[in-house]
């Protein structure tokens, strides 16, 4: 109902869906070989948020994930560690202890993840709990139901309130693009999240299909670019869900480089939310080093 005015407040452009899909497809035609490929693969590893967000998560699973984050594949020298591990709030303290001194961040989902259907008090309490346990990063979800009802002010205020509750922790705002319906909505939600103070914008929870796709990520990257050109302030990007092959991950890096520039090719500004991606990248690196194609059962389960 009040969508037109609000959309004008955020000044979100209309998205040319066909054009975005075409543009995204062209990033997949770059040829990345040998040394550049190895550098790209190691960069992908250093940008991964190794994730476990299951109802059946246990302390053992989180400990195993933390070990994996620090020892990706010990038989290959000189590998970076992943950027962060991503868990539910009740495992933050444990993960923090496991990763002490490793330089790997602990990210926690919060705000009634993954649906976000709860009161603001409960969401803020969720965030405070994760932050007090030591979370370095908070991954919040926006209220998609409210967003679809056109209550953009509500969505904005909620993100701003969570940002305030984060304190030192960096805030990643999950738009759950698979539930937004159109690229126009994705762009609007990105602009709202950036204006409300998100340090990162993130595509998906990983619980809804489709999760991250290249066109959706491109629209979000362009929102970040426009914000940077207007204000000079950088915002990070995290595609999550559905990126499990290293070739696809390299395509994403190319898209980031060609849309935002080299400054974003850094774990501080770009992340992959993934669990199985790490092993695929490791298999590619091992293939490059040894010359032999690899098998999954030679790599640690994550």
């Amino acid at each position, binding site marked *: 109902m009040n969508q037109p005015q609000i959309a004008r407040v955020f000044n979100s452009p209309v998205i040319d869906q066909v054009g975005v899909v075409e543009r995204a497809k062209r990033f997949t035609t770059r040829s990345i070989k040998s040394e550049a490929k190895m550098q790209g693969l190691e960069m992908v590893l250093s940008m991964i948020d190794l994730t476990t967000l299951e109802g059946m998560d246990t302390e053992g699973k989180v400990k195993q994930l933390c070990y994996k984050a620090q020892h990706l594949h010990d038989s290959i020298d000189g590998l970076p560690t992943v950027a962060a591990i991503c868990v539910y709030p009740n495992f933050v303290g444990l993960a923090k202890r496991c990763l002490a001194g490793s330089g790997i961040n602990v990210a926690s989902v919060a705000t009634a993840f993954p649906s976000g259907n709860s009161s603001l008090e409960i969401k803020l309490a969720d965030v405070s709990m994760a932050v007090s346990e030591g979370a370095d990063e908070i991954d919040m979800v926006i209220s998609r139901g409210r967003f679809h009802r056109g209550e953009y002010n509500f969505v904005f205020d909620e993100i701003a309130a969570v940002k305030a509750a984060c304190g030192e922790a960096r805030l990643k705002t999950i738009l759950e693009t698979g539930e937004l319906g159109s690229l126009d909505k994705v762009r609007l939600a990105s602009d709202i999240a950036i204006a409300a103070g998100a340090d990162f914008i993130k595509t998906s929870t990983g619980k809804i299909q489709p999760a991250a796709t290249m066109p959706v990520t491109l629209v979000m990257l362009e929102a970040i670019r426009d914000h940077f050109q207007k204000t000079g302030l950088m915002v990070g990007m995290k595609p999550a869900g559905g990126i499990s092959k290293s070739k696809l991950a390299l395509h994403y890096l190319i898209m980031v480089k060609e849309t935002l520039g080299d400054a974003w090719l850094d774990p501080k500004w770009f992340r992959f939310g993934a669990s199985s991606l790490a092993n695929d990248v490791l298999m590619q690196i091992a293939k490059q080093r040894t*010359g*032999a*194609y*690899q*098998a*999954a059962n*030679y790599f640690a389960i994550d």
Partner: protein
Amino acid sequence: MTESNENSGKSDRLEVLKTYKMYIDGKFPRTESARYYQPVVDGTSLGNVCLASRKDVRNSVVAARSAQSAWARRTAYNRAQILYRIAEMLEGRSQQFLDELLRQGVEAESAETQIAKSIDRLIYYAGWCDKYQQVFSSVNPVASSHFNFSTLEPVGVVFVVASRDCPLLGLISLIAPVIASGNTCVVLASENSPLSAITFAEVLATSDVPGGVVNILTGRVEELSEHFSRHLDVNAIACDGLGAELDTMIKEFASETIKRVKIYNQDWSAEAAANPYLIQDFCEVKTTWHPIEQITESGASY
């Protein structure tokens, strides 16, 4: 009138030539390398055939691996039904196979025998699917309170280099025992006689064999041998008539991963060429120690 009709029927009709493509993951793709070669028989080209690259090997091993556990989980009875079904479909297409074998330079009489024996061989191994386990498994005497038994399990993904000289029967004589126990395979067809292998792939595609269980490539074994024999996700190799030099090279590369290599240099039309030991060649023995109580005075237990 009649005569002119007959004449025009012959001259106006443009013959539609068949493109022989490879068979990977239940689909018929061209090689990713876009290369081709022309096998020549008696000075006549058989047509343009895909020249597989190492990446085709990689892709088909991925397909075989992902199909393997589901194929092995099917009941032995069901695998038998499917092998029987392949034989049925082959029978219905025997004329086409005859034509192609003749084009590939096989004598008419020999071609007919080869086709008949190929069909019979599939039936033979269909029969063995739910019987080899009883023949090769054992209950072992042990000196402790254990019920100790050994059963066969499929090794996993098998790379088959098919016979050069026996393009249909040699191919089927190896594929059938390999898949009977729940292995999946990647097959490199005879370089000079690849037509019947691809047509056999069409039979497989229409006989309830799940995609990925059998994958068929066409190309040069000299080019691909290093890649499949060093591949960590290939569990065994079956070669037929490659010559001592290639056999040794394949064995050396395979030794890096302690991979099983079986060399067959035999006359596939012989009665003895069909036997359950070929099934056993691609199985591993799993021995289970099951704790039991001694429950009778005589020592009988479990």
